[in-house]
């Protein structure tokens, strides 16, 4: 009988604070398989990953029962021994790269194990080749893109010659191309080197394309496991626990297909077959939305005029080049583009944190630079990626009140405004909670409340989806939508999540290399696949499906599954 590469036998794990992270988990993975672990935040995915190389319970402690074996041997209590068999790639590229250049990063593990230098050099050459980073050995990790950093983390594991690679949400901070790079390399390692891969991941479209098996965790228990097609076929269960179903799968299910397509190519094949057979028909030739999707006629609140910004690095780096934009009151705008496209630099000018090298930014016709910090904060709010860079108070309520006091809100009005802001983000029950005891998603919502309480005219969300599960992403976008509808707040959302853009943003600005490449109604922008490709943006899967089968009369500007199923029907 073939020995499984990984065997987890009835494992339960409880953290010292009493949180039960895993409860009776059993799993077997064959050698060379690619297994994706999915589930909402807090389901136990990271705990499961850290069990595989013994970090849990030996470094991160708690109470454990059951056994974990790799290739027939029980995971050792000496973590360094496990490191030779199980490579680990973490979510944050910055926190796991330990050396000043690529070569030394790859050498770090085998050096710790006392491997002879000539052998280490051979392994470095092999590993860099395997992850497609030949010729970059002298580069500093700081100079690599997000995708390259994660590929380097993979190479650094490979030099220890592991049988198993474990990746804990390795693409959560990457743009679509960085994500593709990581998945392609991992798939290649599995195919060409027979390495077993376990990856915790939220991105269902990529999982559908590459994984052999999917394990779904919820509240520490396995609620579904099996071949990828079978698991993604369990749509009601996945929806219930908040795992994103690939849009083509949702559309096929909605239209009662016999087959269960999970990738774009499978979807296209199935839809073309049924359209040709006239089982499916296109009922509308247009989405009736493209032409009037950005019909906002409010006055201009924010304007960038010939905005250029050059960072004084060596050599100088031009992050924005001659950007001209006007944002109107009440708009919901998405800003998209590859990492380094200039999106964050642009919004830092909006809030006065950067000064333009050339050009200017105007808020309601007045130069942003002319505002004091306390005057600008209640006008333009920016919610940053990392909530932990802001939170410091002893309760959620105090956290929200902090900004209000800074801008001089009368003491008698503060409590009402705090309550209103917490209600808007759904944290009214947690007003007295200690912010750092809240979940990551709730901490993010709290930072939104802290900004929203000041009732800004413009609310900017910078990558609100980073580190969030599917429901967490939708939650934040829904809060923005509510503010936009209830208070006519102008929303600017920077994101890599094109499904959110399609669902919520009426206008989309695509940036690349510091310039505005596209600016218009979201459906129109998503129609420009070639230009979007220049900045590593891919329209949502359902939009691409519509575009792929447009020769059958399907309009090219479809944005959501609901819209698709309204237009293409039996």
């Amino acid at each position, binding site marked *: 009988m073939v020995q499984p590469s990984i065997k987890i036998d009835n494992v339960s794990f409880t953290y010292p604070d009493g949180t039960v992270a895993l409860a009776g988990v059993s799993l077997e993975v064959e050698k060379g398989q690619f297994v994706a672990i999915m589930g909402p935040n807090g389901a136990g995915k990271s705990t499961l990953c850290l069990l595989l190389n013994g970090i849990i319970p030996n470094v991160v402690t708690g109470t454990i029962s059951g056994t974990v074996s790799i290739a027939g041997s029980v995971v050792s209590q000496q973590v360094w021994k496990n490191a030779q068999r199980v490579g680990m790639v973490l979510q944050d590229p910055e*926190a796991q790269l330990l050396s000043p250049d690529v070569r030394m990063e790859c050498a*770090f*593990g085998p050096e710790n194990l006392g491997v002879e230098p000539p052998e280490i050099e051979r392994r470095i050459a092999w590993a860099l080749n395997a992850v497609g980073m030949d010729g970059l050995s002298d580069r500093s990790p700081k100079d690599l893109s997000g995708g390259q950093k994660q590929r380097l983390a993979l190479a650094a594991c490979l030099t220890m010659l592991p049988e198993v690679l474990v990746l804990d949400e390795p693409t959560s901070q990457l743009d679509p191309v960085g994500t593709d790079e990581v998945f392609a390399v991992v798939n290649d390692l599995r195919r060409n080197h027979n390495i077993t891969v376990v990856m915790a991941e939220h991105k269902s479209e990529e999982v559908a394309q590459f994984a052999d098996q999917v394990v779904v965790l919820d509240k520490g228990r396995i609620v579904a496991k099996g071949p990828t097609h079978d698991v993604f076929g369990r749509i009601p269960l996945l929806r219930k626990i908040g795992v994103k179903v690939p849009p083509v799968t949702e559309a096929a299910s909605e239209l009662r297909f016999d087959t269960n397509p999970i990738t774009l190519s499978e979807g296209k094949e199935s839809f073309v077959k049924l359209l040709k057979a006239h089982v499916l028909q296109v009922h509308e030739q247009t989405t009736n939305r493209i032409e009037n999707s950005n019909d906002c006629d409010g006055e201009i609140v924010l304007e960038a005029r010939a905005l250029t910004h050059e960072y004084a690095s060596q050599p100088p780096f031009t992050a924005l080049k001659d950007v001209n934009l006007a944002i109107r009151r009440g708009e919901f705008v998405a800003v998209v583009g590859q990492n380094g496209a200039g999106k964050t630099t642009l919004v830092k000018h909006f809030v006065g*944190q950067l000064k333009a090298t050339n050009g200017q930014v105007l808020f309601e016709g007045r130069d942003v630079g002319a505002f004091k910090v306390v005057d600008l*904060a209640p006008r333009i709010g920016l919610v940053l990626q990392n909530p932990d*860079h802001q939170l*410091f108070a002893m309760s959620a309520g105090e956290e929200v009140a902090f900004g209000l006091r800074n801008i001089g809100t009368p003491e008698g009005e503060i409590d009402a405004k705090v309550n209103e802001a917490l209600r808007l983000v759904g944290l009214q029950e947690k007003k007295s909670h200690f912010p*750092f005891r809240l979940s990551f998603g709730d901490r993010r919502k709290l930072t939104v409340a802290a900004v929203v309480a000041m009732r800004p005219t413009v609310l900017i969300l910078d990558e609100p989806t980073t580190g969030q599960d599917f429901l967490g992403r939708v939650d934040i976008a829904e809060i923005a939508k509510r503010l936009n509808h209830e208070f006519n707040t102008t929303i600017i959302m920077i994101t890599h999540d094109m499904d959110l853009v399609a669902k919520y943003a009426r206008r989309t600005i695509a940036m690349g290399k510091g310039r505005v490449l596209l600016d218009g109604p979201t459906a129109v922008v998503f129609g420009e696949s070639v230009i979007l490709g220049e900045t590593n943006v891919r329209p949502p899967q359902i939009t691409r499906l519509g575009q792929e089968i447009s020769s059958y009369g399907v309009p090219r500007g479809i944005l959501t599954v609901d819209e698709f199923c309204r237009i293409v029907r039996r």
Partner: protein
Amino acid sequence: MAAIEFVKKDTPIHRLQPLTKLILLIASLVVMVAVDDLFLYVAWILMLLVWWKVGKIELGRFAGLARLLTGTFLFLVVIQGFMPPSSPEWKARLHTVLFSVGPYPFWLEGGLFGLTLVIRVLCVVAAIPIFTMTSPLAKIAATFARLRIPFTYSYVFLSALRFVPFVSWTWEMIRDAQKLRGFDMSRLPLLDRLRRGYVPLIIPLFISLFRTSDSLEIALSSRAFGAPVKRTYVESVGLGANDVLAIGVILVMLIGFIWLRFTYGSIFWPFVASAEHGLWRF
């Protein structure tokens, strides 16, 4: 803070082994402790600045380092000016009162003594970037191993070097993040700033650092850090001809400075005394 972070360049100083630059750093320490003369300190700093020039370390970084220490330096000069050492030798040296604050005179000699202390510190401060900014961390680690310093200790030192720029970056991020909530510490009155101004910055900084150090611990453990085997190093740290030459120059200069000091005694204070004498006569 970037004044101590390695910057990759191809210069003669970068090509020297870290051991050579470590010897320069140690020699600077010896000068600091043994020489005790303002003129010799200045000469040593000028020699170090030649290393900076050859190593293409921007001189602006020296100004940056000095700016960081400005508060401490001013404190030293002011305190020594008003309260110079009270030994009989020093009492005999005090001649010139520059100004008085009420009944408290500010002594020129005391101020110059404070300045000497400042320049003394700069002797070592100026040598640090030559070591850290021109030597890759991996080579420093291999050098420490050669000196038989356990890797765990040298890694703590190297991690600290890595962490300093990270702390600085995080601090700036937090400061900007709090400005978005109308909190601008630079506009707070001094007392308010000291009393509560730092709280919204320091707490998030510590939380971020704790979280990062947790991730770092996991990353290190996952890469067999601290394995009970004899660690190897792919970096070669053997000394070349240029290193031997540079070490020779450093040692000759060090011995020369010490010889000058102990053969001729203090050069600076007699100069001050004669300058003051000249001034009185004038």
